[in-house]
């Protein structure tokens, strides 16, 4: 079970959080500027916090007190952002293969095909990344992040900007995965149907944790007020 404790101080912002991902799906919910993306970046290993401890399964990824900080590429964490950063000089297939170079050619080709199929992107496998539509890019980015079989998948508003049909299709495919997912959103409608726990983040601090519907029901007024600011 991923266990996360982070204190991250920047000149203009401080993040102080402590939580465990007990559910397979956990949604980090909060208004813009609450620190959701910063939190994901620290967990992914793209930013170093002032202090903190992150444990994933039995592995300690970060323990500033003991000088431990596992590099991003060895954390077994996939990270997909709102703008999927596909390598523009590669095809969809090559993008997915980028993170699994350690596999031999046959196993790599099989894994790439499996990941593209998982997100309904087999037909665009040989299309160059710049020729893909927004929805196709997100499918390929998800397939690429899952290629190395991460233990934790970080998703930062991955469905933003998609039409409802594409968003629903991708979401239903994501929900069928057997991986811990930490999902950032500020869209109540998007997360309402997710079988997830929710962490409500305000100004860098966790202010509510629990099953999604419970937290939303208990803090409904405050959540709506915060989100409408």
């Amino acid at each position, binding site marked *: 079970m991923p266990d996360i404790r982070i204190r991250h101080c920047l000149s203009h912002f401080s993040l102080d959080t402590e939580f465990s991902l007990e559910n397979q799906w956990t949604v980090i919910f909060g208004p813009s500027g609450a620190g959701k993306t910063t939190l994901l970046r620290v967990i992914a*290993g793209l930013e170093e916090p002032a202090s903190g401890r992150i444990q994933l399964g039995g592995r300690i990824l970060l323990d500033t007190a003991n000088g431990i900080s596992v590099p991003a590429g060895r954390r077994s964490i*996939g990270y997909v952002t709102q703008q999927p950063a596909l*390598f523009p*000089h590669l095809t969809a297939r090559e993008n997915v293969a980028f*993170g699994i170079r350690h596999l031999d050619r046959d196993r790599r080709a099989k894994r790439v095909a499996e990941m593209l199929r998982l997100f309904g992107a087999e037909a665009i496998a040989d299309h160059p990344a710049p020729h893909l539509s927004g929805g196709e890019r997100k499918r390929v980015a998800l397939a690429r992040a899952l290629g190395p079989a991460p233990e934790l998948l970080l998703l930062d508003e991955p469905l933003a900007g998609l039409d409802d049909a594409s968003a629903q299709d991708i979401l239903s495919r994501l929900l069928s995965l057997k991986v811990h997912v930490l999902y950032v959103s500020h869209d109540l409608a998007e997360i309402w149907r997710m079988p997830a726990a929710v962490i409500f983040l305000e100004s860098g601090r966790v202010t509510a944790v629990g099953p999604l519907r419970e937290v939303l029901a208990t803090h409904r007024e405050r959540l709506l007020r915060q989100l409408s600011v």
Partner: protein
Amino acid sequence: MDLQALWLTLRLATTTTILLLAIGIPLAYWLASARSRLRPIVEAITTLPILLPPTVLGFYLLVLLGPHTAFGRLTSRLLGHPVAFSFSGLIIGSVLYSLPFAVQPLTAGFRAIDAALIEQGRLLGAGRLRILTGVFLPLSVHSVVAASALCFTHTVGEFGVVLMIGGDIPGTTRTLSIAIYDQVQEFSYSAANRTSLLLVCISACALILLYTRRARVGAPHA
């Protein structure tokens, strides 16, 4: 036409360009990605040859590579001959003199790469070498071509550094630009005109190739 000088100049420009890419790519990668405090100092040193008069650079190289310094004696022993007034000396001088013409376009190209792509590379387990070969270089082909064209043409047209470090030895250090100087000294203006025209053609061809490629690829800058 001094064919010996033409051949020597082409050999010098090709060797210098290859060496500058081998040195410039890792150096530009470091300049574009490192957070070291030494970065501005290294950047200033690599840019210095643009501002230095070529004769100044050539003079210091002549002193450094001469028999009166430990470095000069060491390089002489390693190469089996004195470096000053030799083709090896010309290469060392040319590499130093054209270093900014390799490093600057490469660094600009590397810095223009979206940081999100580099982060994805790191997240997918790529080390520094793989990020260089798998992300930076394929996305900076135009900068590599620009650096190569600039280094080649700049070396072809060198005069001051070449004269100081190499002198004017036919077949060893007499390049086309030195040959033009000799031809003018001998009042052979028509020969000097032909050699000069050849230099103009070489430089123009390299730049036309570069800009044609840029127009085809649609790259906004070097």
